[in-house]
């Protein structure tokens, strides 16, 4: 399995490397099928929709911004493909299925939020140690400026400056 990141694979595909896409398929097919299975209810339909989602993804890959989070894009395509599939097969939606579809909307949001959180954590890991430490203490451990100042033996204004700079760096990475 390739060690290349999603962004590197997307850039390679956009540059003409067709078979870099195979690595993305292998990477995402299980997650995608599980996600779609909850909307459709059977293995074969989930596999078919996953296939179609990958084809749709490949056809639109030139429009993907390789600097932005790729996984959200993948799941959004899968969701839209699954919804089209449901409309095409014109299944009657029972109340139970409707409840599952509504629950799936929040499942979709949960998956996107989880991917968001991972992306933010990776961005924090890329910061310099002093900024990373301050962000972790402030946002993840919920300490106040005074508490961080005591823990890191630094003046409180320095802590404020570190937090502000770290936020600017994260903003640049994430946007």
């Amino acid at each position: 399995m390739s060690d290349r990141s999603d962004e590197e694979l997307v850039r390679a595909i956009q540059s003409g490397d067709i078979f870099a896409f195979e690595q993305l398929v292998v990477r995402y097919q299980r997650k995608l099928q599980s996600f779609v299975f909850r909307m459709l209810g059977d293995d074969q339909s989930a596999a078919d929709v996953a296939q179609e989602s990958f084809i749709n993804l490949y056809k639109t890959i030139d429009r993907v911004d390789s600097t932005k989070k790729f996984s959200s894009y993948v799941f959004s395509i899968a969701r839209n493909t699954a919804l089209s599939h449901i409309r095409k097969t014109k299944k009657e939606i029972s109340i139970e299925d409707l409840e599952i579809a509504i629950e799936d909307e929040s499942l979709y949001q949960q998956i996107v939020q989880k991917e968001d959180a991972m992306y933010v954590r990776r961005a924090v890991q890329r910061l310099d140690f002093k900024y990373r430490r301050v962000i972790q203490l402030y946002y993840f451990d919920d300490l106040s400026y005074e508490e961080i100042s005591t823990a890191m033996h630094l003046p409180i204004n320095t802590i404020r400056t570190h937090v502000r700079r770290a936020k600017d760096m994260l903003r640049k990475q994430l946007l």
Partner: protein
Amino acid sequence: MKSIDVSEQVMQKIVRFEETRTRVWLRRFYIFLITLVIVLGVYLWISWKTMSDLHTWDLLNLFSEDWEIITEFWSETIMTFFIELPAETLIAALVVGAGIVGAFVITKKRRKIIALRRTQLANQKIKSKNKRV
């Protein structure tokens, strides 16, 4: 839920899609290029024919004469030559020529991508042939 490996089917469909897409793009590009080349050829031929009818080429015979004659009449001859040039068709030919160059420049990146894809598709075909053998 049983997860089914769809990677092979997906890649087969993508290979077919890419074969069609690159073929269509190349066909359109060559048709566009050949059309421009033909139009350029037509304009150049019209220009040449016009100049032949006006005997403009005969003016250049001056340069086969003696050096004294050339030095005396060269500027007048050159001026007459340029006046007799069919400006409209030559300008049109220039525009078309610029279009041909522009087509190559603008599509440089795209052609590189297409070339890489074609190489990969060709290698894939060889691999499949060898597998069958």
